[in-house]
Each structure stands twice: as structure tokens, then as C-alpha cells.
């Protein structure tokens, strides 16, 4: 028995005289607004800024969490209120620096991946590797060339692992 739209036909009760062919709907091409809306996400600048903001959000939470674990040095001398203020300041400082670090990481990674993918016109794991290397190198560039190489390799491996994990779970 076909349902209301005439598309679904149950196997068991298919009567040749009553069988309805599935309706062929015309191809609906996207309108100009839809294309523009989708194209915003294709823009490298927009993508990297959004990734940077998301990285900043993650960094805030990480900083709050890690800052809460920190213990003040002069624990014996402070009153409860002082301890609380100190703890709050510590968490705030930690979360702000962590937010900055993660935001930069997200921004650089997303920008590099976007640029590389647009240039290659392919969707590969190579894009992730190159972007991870660029990010790791940018973050640890202050330690000299050796540290930059190590950071590049490490972050590239890390991002490949994360990418494969996300792919297999989608």
C-alpha cells in the first residue's frame, strides 16, 4: 500500500494494478541566496576567524579547569576570603592565557588548511598534515629551528590522529 505521497511502496502488499510509480521531482537548483550563504563558509578568512573564536572558547574552559587545580603558595597565611580571591584571579589569568594560545592555534590551523586545500583542489589528509606542521612550527618558533621542527612534526601527527578519529566516528 502506498502512503500519501505515493513514494513508499511496501514489498509484501504490492499489487501490480495499484502500484504507483515513485514521483519524479524536478531538480531544484540552489537559489543565489543559498549559494551565497554556502559560499560564506568557503571563505578562508571567515573560516579561520570562526575557528579562532572556537579555539578561544575551548581555551577559556581549559584555563578555568586548570586554574582551579592550582594551589596558592602561601596557603597557611591567607584567610578564606583571600584564598578565594587569589584562586579566582589565578583561574582568570590562566584561562585568559590559555584562551589566547588556543585561539591562535585554531586560527593558524584553520587558515593553513583552508589555503592549502583551495590551492590543491583536493580533500586529502595531506592538507591536515601541512596545516598541523604550520601550526606546530608557528607555536614553537620561539625556541629556535629545532624546536620548530619538533613542534611541526608533533602537531602534524596529533592533528592526523584527531582527523582520523573524527572521520571514523562520523
Amino acid at each position, binding site marked *: 500500500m502506498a502512503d500519501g505521497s505515493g513514494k513508499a511502496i511496501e514489498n509484501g502488499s504490492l499489487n501490480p494494478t495499484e502500484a504507483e510509480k515513485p514521483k519524479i521531482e524536478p531538480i531544484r537548483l540552489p537559489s543565489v541566496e543559498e549559494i551565497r550563504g554556502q559560499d560564506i563558509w568557503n571563505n578562508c578568512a571567515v573560516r579561520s576567524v570562526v575557528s579562532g573564536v572556537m579555539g578561544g572558547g575551548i581555551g577559556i574552559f581549559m584555563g578555568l579547569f586548570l586554574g582551579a587545580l592550582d594551589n596558592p603558595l602561601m596557603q597557611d597565611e591567607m584567610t578564606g576570603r583571600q584564598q578565594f580571591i587569589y584562586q579566582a584571579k589565578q583561574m582568570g589569568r590562566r584561562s585568559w592565557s590559555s584562551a589566547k594560545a588556543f585561539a591562535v592555534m585554531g586560527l593558524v590551523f584553520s587558515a593553513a588548511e583552508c589555503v592549502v586545500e583551495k590551492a590543491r*583542489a583536493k580533500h586529502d589528509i595531506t592538507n591536515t598534515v601541512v596545516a598541523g606542521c604550520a601550526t606546530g612550527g608557528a607555536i614553537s618558533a620561539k625556541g629556535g629551528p629545532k624546536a620548530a621542527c619538533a613542534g611541526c612534526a608533533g602537531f602534524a601527527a596529533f592533528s592526523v590522529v584527531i582527523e582520523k578519529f573524527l572521520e571514523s566516528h562520523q
Partner: protein
Amino acid sequence: MVKDDILLRDFNVNDLIRKGKQMNLGNDISLVCSEQRGTMAANISPAAHLDKEQIFGIAEKEMEYRVELFNKMTHTCFNKCVDNRYKESELNMGENSCIDRCVSKYWHVTNLIGQLLGSGKPPM
């Protein structure tokens, strides 16, 4: 007017020229080729022997040519750019830029060949 099996027909530009010559359209064939240069209506010769039949014939050929071009372009660029293992339904960025480049190249080549064929003597 578009037939159902337009995808399967081997309809190329030489075919078009041959059929046009059979219909004695003469220099109206420059319509199809020069349309690529964006000068479609301006080239229709104002000769008196152009009756409705022939105009419809030209329009039908033009439409078929267009549809064939679109289908071939879509198939070619799809086979070139989109990987066979579908992981998601949306086009990702690499595929988008590949499609942009493919369509641009295809269109340029089509225009170029159309100009060469329409200029009279193809260098063969």
C-alpha cells in the same frame, strides 16, 4: 522539446553543422558557433526565406546543444573532481575549487573551439 534520452545521444558540433547544411541554412550556422561569443540575436540574417519552421529548427538545435553541453560538463567535472568514496553529502572546499576550475576551463575550451569552427575554415 528536450528529449528524454538527450544524455545518451552522441550529439556533437560537427553533427550540428552537418544537419544545418542539410537544411540549407547556410550562414545561419554561424548562429550556433558565434553564440559562444555572445552575439546571438544580432547574427540572424534578415533574409526573407527564414520562416517560422526554420527559426524553430534553429531554436531546437540550440536547445539540444545547450543541454548536451551542460550534461557533458557536469559529468566530466564530476568524474574529475568528486572522489568515489562519499563521506558526506556536502561539497567540501577542495571539491568546490576543483569544480570552479573545471567549469572555467571547460567553458573556455568550448568557446575557443566554437570560435575556430565558426570562423569558417577550421585548420584541419
